[in-house]
């Protein structure tokens, strides 16, 4: 395709002008500040502060590399879900069902029939089952929201309740142990000294970053979240795209189910309880606007890491989970307040 396909009107005055040189992106201190580092500056500082607190209060126990890996490992499952959630929220929606879809996927993947099939062929059968359950639930959410015009909050709240219930029925309120050693071995192996769970998180985050920033899919997501009507009138298939967004959160819930099966070696309907709230908190703390139209994957990754580090610092200092919860709440409010300050500079100039 060549540029000649777009029509231009001849400039009103004068003959042919030499085309202006491409504006090169220069990396000055200012451009960096207004660029991705600047946008995430608050998050970087917050994370650094948490690390400082951890290093001072727990010393070597906190700063050694194994503990750092523990933190990222802790973050990885919520992290994967948060990546999916980032897309839905940028697109102007919300998905409350991720946690219970994850639970459902973990139960379905460990049903004895599925495990028997996996035993006879390959453990990937379990993986694909979990992913398929997540995708299916996501598509159903998306269909009801995009074509049934049900408010996302309500549609996914219904899915939250229903998926959890279905998981309980299927599992008969029992914990289903994974009996495929190859699967457990693979999930608990490491590559270059880094856990498989962390690799999965990194992979999903990188894929999410590319999808959001470099593809037409990402561009449509931002357009729909930023101005749904303008996107529609520009010829973007808004409803179909909305459905895909929920399919993405469903898929990430499926991936998270695989991860938690590997970590706990069991499927149960209680997996993923309240994960939706942690994921939403991480996304919003990461600077994504709840109203949609703006947000970053990098921000979400920082958001997830901040919460995981916080938990770790508290655990290292033997503080109770109740204290942790209070601190989490404070962090959410402070982070959102800071984000508003930073965001406000960009858009309220006029």
């Amino acid at each position, binding site marked *: 395709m060549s*540029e000649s396909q777009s029509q231009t009107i001849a400039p009103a005055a004068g003959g042919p002008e030499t085309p202006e040189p491409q504006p090169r992106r220069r990396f000055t201190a200012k451009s960096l500040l207004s660029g991705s580092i600047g946008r995430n500056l608050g998050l970087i500082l917050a994370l650094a502060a948490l690390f400082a607190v951890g290093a001072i209060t727990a010393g070597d126990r906190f700063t050694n590399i194994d503990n750092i890996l523990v933190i990222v490992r802790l973050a990885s499952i919520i992290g994967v879900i948060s990546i999916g959630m980032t897309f839905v929220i940028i697109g102007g929606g919300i998905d409350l069902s991720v946690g219970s879809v994850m639970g459902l996927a973990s139960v379905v993947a460990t049903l004895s029939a599925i495990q028997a099939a996996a035993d006879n062929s390959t453990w990937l059968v379990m993986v694909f089952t979990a992913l398929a359950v997540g995708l299916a639930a996501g598509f159903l959410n998306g269909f009801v929201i995009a074509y049934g015009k049900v408010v996302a909050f309500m549609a996914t709240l219904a899915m939250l309740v229903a998926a959890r219930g279905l998981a309980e029925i299927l599992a008969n309120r029992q914990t289903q142990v994974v009996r495929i050693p190859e699967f457990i071995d693979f999930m608990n192996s490491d590559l270059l000294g880094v856990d498989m769970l962390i690799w999965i998180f990194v992979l999903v985050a990188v894929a999410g970053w590319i999808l959001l920033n470099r593809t037409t899919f990402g561009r449509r997501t*931002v357009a729909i979240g*930023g101005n749904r009507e303008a996107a529609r*009138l520009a010829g973007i298939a808004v409803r179909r795209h909305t459905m895909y967004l929920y399919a993405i959160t469903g898929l990430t819930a499926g991936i998270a189910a695989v991860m938690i099966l590997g970590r706990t070696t069991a499927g149960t309907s209680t997996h993923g309880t309240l994960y939706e709230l942690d994921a939403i908190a991480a996304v919003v703390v990461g600077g994504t606007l709840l109203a949609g139209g703006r947000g970053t994957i990098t921000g979400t990754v920082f958001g997830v890491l901040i919460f995981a580090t916080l938990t770790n610092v508290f655990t290292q200092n033997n503080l109770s989970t109740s204290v942790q919860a209070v601190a989490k709440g404070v962090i959410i409010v402070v982070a959102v307040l800071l984000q508003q300050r930073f965001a406000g500079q960009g858009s309220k100039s006029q």
Partner: protein
Amino acid sequence: MTGISKNFSGVQALKNVDLEIVAGEVHCILGQNGAGKSTLIKTLAGAHLPDSGTIEWNGEPVSLHSPQDAIELGIATMYQELDVVDGLTIAENIFLGHELSLGGVLRTGEANERTRRLLERLGHGDLAPSREVGSLSAANKQIVSMARALSHDTRLIIMDEPSAVLDGEEVKNLFRVVRELTSAGIAVVYITHRLEEIREIGDRITVLKDGSSTANGLDVSETPTSELIRRMTGREVENVFPAATPIPDDAPLALEVQGLSLDGVFHDVDFTVRAGEIVGLAGLVGSGRSEILETIYGARRASSGTVRANGRRLRRGSVRDAVRAGIGLSPEERKSQGLLLDEPIFRNVTLSSFTRFARGGFVDERRERRIAAEQIDALELRPADPDRPARTLSGGNQQKILLARWLVNRTSVLLLDEPTRGVDVGARAEIYALIRELAANGDAVVVVSSEIEEVLGLADTVLVVGDGRILTTVKSDQIDEHQVLDLVMKGTAA
């Protein structure tokens, strides 16, 4: 009240602007977007503090640190965006922020009574104070806004483009109210783009250009229009509307609309547009003119009838199909329907076409930027920076983004709904010239505008729309403004 004099020199927005307002006058402030009108009135309203300069009120120097200070002095402001709360009643809106209460308990009865008196004074005694504002038309919301301004002991009302959302008839009522206010000794600062309104309502006029005043307190009746335009733009604008170019007889039909109906809104709309032709739809707000455009475009699903673009029959209610067939719509509400305000210009320009600049689903931003830069050049879009957020542009330049969007998409049928709403006079002439050039290049254009003059000046063929029907189809040089108005009124009454 002897008047206010003010002059202050900000770094960019305003440079040593003087403004003197006399009690009982309508003082118009004219200027292109970005000339500093908004900054000036915000200073007067107490929303901005001047960097230097003084404000005197009745001969006494005052400093306005907050909108509350201004209100206490008797300066009320009606902002351009109707700042009313839809979920509250008229009375609640009017007394918002200074509720009538007795020991914390709202005195609803008293508020309603005083609201009724205010509305009566504005000639709208028919509006019930307990009515919810969300159910009112834009014109009536403005009345509420005005009543709120009057609910204080107001000596000066600032109106920022009050006519932008109003129809011909509603503007007349607005003017009547303004005259009543001034005859009661209240001063009105009236901000507008429309020169003809200044002629009708203004006493004196201050013109701003690039943050400086180029005319101070000129007498409206003694200043010719060309003089005002020159002071506002710094150049001569001889003829606002470009000359029509003849359409070749063998020009193909680009758009064919047959028997198009939308239940309860319009019915049996037939017309065709040839390549190179500009067709204008004239009619009142609510006549169905915008809906006709939106239905052609597929944004609304027609109840019957067909639309063909370049010979291809379009699927009903499918915007994507219309876009693929080469139709582009520039919607009535530029900001809420057309633009991603926080996104850079180039992404707005390529919103309909970025898929074409992508390889295997990966967008090519460098190429997008380059193509947007070409359009910025061709359309003289300012500022010429593809990375600037759309929000920061003036109305005229935002309109150019939408035109550029469809140019990039190789659109051959352009539907333009109110292409110059909120666009100042200088930029209007540019937009008109662009539209004419597009037609001369072989595009078919349909223009909807509430300004009959604009339709007549721009279009080759005029369709007069009233009461959901096309009343007349006529060459634009065979009809004048009064005849159109006459038709429109009759059609609506029938």
